[in-house]
């Protein structure tokens, strides 16, 4: 499954140069096939165990102790499903969007899909790193080649930020691989199953944790390393934004759950209060900045910063409710923000602007577009019954169980979310139609609707019956939380003690 998209891309590149319809359909067929495969995987996945499944293990570089070791647990499965779905819907969504070098564009996305799936499956640190970097390159080109007017700046910023994190991570990977050796003559240990049992001293843990964490935090992105995101989004083509927000940001959260916490539990437990504070700053800060954005894409980008704050906040509450909430927010955010970017793109194709002030009254000429935007806006602001609510509520509840004051501040972000989203909706869709010409333009067509409907349906599904998804991730999350419990107890609830000392305890 991982390499099917690459295969598709190669076939396209080699055989179908200059035959646009053919390679577009090949791209569609490839992503569809991958999606079906991922569905098969979801159905075959055993939800009762936390151990890894569908394991493939082949020797790769034995001298370095590295092997091609792939496998998935519930969290990977969920994110892979998200990846394959989004990769599928962006194909019809950008059917006529790109004007030059179309072939390379679609091929780049297929390469990207391989990288993304691989990252979610890798059970070997070196392999993980390879996939992680593999993702970076197509994305760099997608922004840099098919982006907007400031694309070079944005692509470079994206690349440098991510690269800075990657380098730190690589150093940490090599360091722990060598430190985890049973003796000085053995090969380094990259395999996660073995690393899981290795014990590192606290200073090593802390250093490695920080290196990994910074890499992932940039990806999430957490405050204050988020500034690459708005620029990248604004310049990226629609499909690029969808994947960037929908999947690439999730790599950060995934990495934290998969590597940062279980490999360095002691350091993670010690870092909890600080990371939670950063998360809460991100929630409020992102929301406040969304409030004053003038460009629709930037607004959605800053709202991502805010929403991803719920992810890290939930995860680092390190109780079952919080972590499951965090993971569910990742999934739901992928669906919703992906859809929002699609919609912004569809509006852009018609109006050739993303300035909020240039819009107004779009609901009259484009009722279908307005209905979809309303749906995803509401879901995104956490309306119960849709996907945003369940994750955010669980995440907040987890945070609340950890520390009440933090949850209170974070919950303030939900008020702000309603404010910036509804205000955006008001200024773009409601009020008088600003330009009579718009009535001559066509509303969403069937191809565009078909890209949105599956995402919307899933958003409803998660909102109404989240058990389907929570059951998949439950065993893995439970294992993680149980592993962390002693460390959390040891480090104690720093903030509760702090507040108790202030006498501010409820």
């Amino acid at each position, binding site marked *: 499954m991982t390499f099917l998209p690459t295969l598709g891309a190669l076939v396209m590149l080699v055989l179908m140069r200059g035959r646009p319809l053919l390679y577009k359909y090949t791209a569609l067929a490839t992503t569809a096939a991958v999606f079906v495969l991922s569905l098969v995987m979801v159905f075959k996945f055993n939800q009762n165990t936390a151990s890894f499944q569908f394991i493939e293990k082949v020797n790769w570089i034995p001298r370095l102790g590295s092997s091609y070791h792939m496998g998935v647990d519930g969290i990977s499965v969920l994110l892979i499903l998200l990846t394959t779905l989004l990769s599928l819907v962006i194909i019809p969504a950008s059917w006529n969007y790109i004007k030059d070098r179309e072939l390379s564009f679609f091929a780049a996305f297929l390469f990207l899909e391989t990288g993304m799936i691989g990252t979610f499956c890798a059970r070997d640190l070196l392999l993980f790193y390879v996939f992680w970097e593999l993702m970076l390159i197509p994305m760099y080109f997608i922004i840099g080649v098919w982006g907007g007017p400031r694309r070079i700046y944005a692509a470079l*910023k994206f690349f440098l930020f991510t690269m800075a994190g990657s380098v730190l991570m690589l150093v940490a990977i090599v360091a722990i691989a060598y430190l985890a050796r049973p003796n000085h003559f053995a090969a380094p240990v990259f395999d996660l199953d073995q690393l899981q049992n290795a014990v590192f001293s606290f200073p090593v843990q802390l250093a490695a944790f920080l290196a990994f964490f910074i890499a992932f935090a940039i990806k999430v992105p957490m405050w204050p390393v988020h500034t690459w995101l708005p620029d990248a989004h604004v310049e990226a083509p629609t499909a690029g934004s969808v994947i960037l927000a929908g999947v690439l940001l999730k790599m950060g959260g995934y990495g934290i759950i998969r590597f940062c916490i279980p490999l360095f539990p002691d350091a993670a437990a010690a870092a909890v209060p600080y990371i939670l504070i950063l998360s809460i700053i991100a929630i409020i800060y992102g929301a406040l900045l969304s409030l004053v954005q003038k460009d629709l894409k930037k607004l959605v980008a800053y709202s991502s910063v805010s929403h991803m704050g719920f992810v890290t906040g939930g995860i680092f509450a390190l109780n079952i409710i919080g972590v499951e909430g965090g993971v569910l927010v990742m999934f739901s955010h992928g669906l919703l923000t992906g859809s929002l970017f699609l919609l912004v793109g569809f509006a852009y194709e018609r109006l050739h602007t993303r300035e909020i002030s240039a819009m107004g009254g779009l609901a009259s000429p484009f009722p279908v577009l307005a209905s979809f935007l309303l749906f995803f806006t509401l879901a995104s602001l956490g309306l*119960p019954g849709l996907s945003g609510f369940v994750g955010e509520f669980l995440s907040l*509840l987890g945070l609340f169980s950890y520390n009440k004051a933090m949850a209170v501040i974070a919950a303030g972000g*939900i008020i702000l979310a*309603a*404010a910036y989203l*509804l205000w955006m909706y008001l200024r773009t869709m*409601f009020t008088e139609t600003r330009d009579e010409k718009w009535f001559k333009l066509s509303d969403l067509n069937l191809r565009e609707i078909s890209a949105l409907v599956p995402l919307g349906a899933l958003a409803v599904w998660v909102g109404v*019956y989240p058990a389907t998804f929570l059951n998949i991730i439950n065993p893995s999350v439970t294992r993680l939380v149980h592993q962390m419990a002693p460390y959390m107890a040891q480090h104690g609830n720093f903030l509760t003690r702090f507040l108790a000392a202030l006498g501010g305890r409820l």
Partner: protein
Amino acid sequence: MKAVVLLIPLLPLASFVFTGLLGRRYLKEKSHFASVGAVAISWLLSMYVFIQVERGHTLSWQIYSWIAVGHFSVDIGFLVDELTAIMLLVVATVGFMVHVYSIGYMHGDKGYYRFFAYINLFMFSMFMLVLANNYLLLYVFWEAVGLCSYLLIAFWFPKVSASNAGMKAFLVNRVGDFGFSLGIMLIFVTLGTLSYSGVFAAAGGLSGGMATAICLLLFTGAVGKSAQFPLHVWLPDAMEGPTPVSSLIHAATMVNAGVYMVARSNPLFAHSHTAMLVVAIIGTFTAIFAASIAMVQTDIKKVLAYSTVSQLGYMFMALGVGAWTAAMFHLLAHGFFKGLLFLCSGSVIHAMGGEQDMLKMGGLRKKIKITYWTFLIGALALSGFPGLSGFFSKDAVLAGAFDGGYYYFWIVAVITVFLTAFYSFRMIFLTFFNEPRDARLFSHAHESPWVMTVPLIVLAVPTVGAGLLLGVPPGSGYIDHFLHGVFAAAIHAPAHEFGLLSGVLMAFSAAVGIAGILLAWHFYLRCPWLPAKACKRSGRFYTLLLNKYYIDEIYFAVIINPLRRFSGWLWRIVDAGVIDGAVNGAGWLAVGAGRALRPIQAGKIQGYLFTMMLGLLVLMIVYVFLTL
């Protein structure tokens, strides 16, 4: 019974999907069939459920487990008891009538199908809200009715004021819901469950402080939804929505959700005297505060809106002083008579071709007879005229405050009765009496079609009769017995006997109401030049009332504008300046460092060797430290 209960919300939901999907292309002006039909059946089923509950068949039913994570688990399930039955009765009856009325009122509107789809969605959400068996589900539909309210207030979205009002309603409610959701989390963290039965069973073990905290947080939600001070600001603006919506959502059903929630949580509130007192204070203050604003408004719907805020304040006062049954009784009566009043005002507006300013009306009594008589009945009930429903329910509230020893609250409430009667009849006299003030509008005025007048007549029946039927004798009438079981945990004292003192108080409050009517008569019929003079006399105070105590302006100056300025500052200074500046600075630093380090790559072997040795040394030191 399970199937019946399930169908009540599902029918409007099905109709919402049907009308919403097919309305624009296919159903068009026939959109109301499915929608009205579904609600009609839901109404019949609600009546059936009420009768079943009346016979003692309550229902508690877990349908499926919605969210289950760790030890957190929430079901989707129904609880049908006496309290639910009362709410179903109001929601279904007013809902059904409003649907029928809307066929006439919304006729010819471009968004006809959209209107019926939204209002069906509202019915579904509202039914679910009162049927829910746990706090989270209540919260879910609490938000959902808020959404419908948003959609319907902003129904005529090309109008800037309408879209603004919709957004304002949603946001102000979000502020309340912020407290509500934290309250729910606090309940879960302390009691470990969210189902009503579980929470109420465990409520006894709460410490006083915790009970107060939970109750006040829940109450914050109620303050938002039921438009109590200081979150009342959205409701008057919500009048931008079509009038049937004002009647259904913003008078008879949704705004009562806060009262319902507090009443439902009575076992919790019973543990916190402080919280009860806060509820009573907010309620009483809102009652007189909003009534005073209603006295000077000239928009007919705004008068009714402030009146609703004020009457909801009564209900909270009743809850706060422990007169639980009285609160629900007033909710029921108010639901009918205020729903009626709004529909009547809609009929007036319809007759006047969309004009809402009472100063342009006058003399309509002869032209729109049915509307006039039903409006009069509603206004009399609102003023607490003896015999009508409002009289008994309002008196139950007053008696509850008096019997509980809350004399100050009682005095404020009696003054409010006076104000209420005054503004109600000011409205009647300005609209229906004297000479028409706008001849052109008047000449076009006509009575509404029967689809609109029949609902008025139907709603006038309970407006007249509900009090006599349910509230006699006061303090031990039908409704007191019916709801006794629900509030058993919270009512400590046995019901007060209706004695001489109660009779005197009742007569007194009735007299106060009639005095208010007479004053309005004196001002607006006998000496029509008086109001202008009085306004001039009271000068500043009048301006203060006319501007609704400048609450909106204060919010803009203190909260909204500073927040926007702060966000703008964050964006320009912190994000673009400090953070990005640091990053770009680091970039320049790298370039500079590259330049500075260029000499060591100048191709001199010694240089390379030296650097290698240095690097090796550093690595060895690090390695030694790490292995130590």
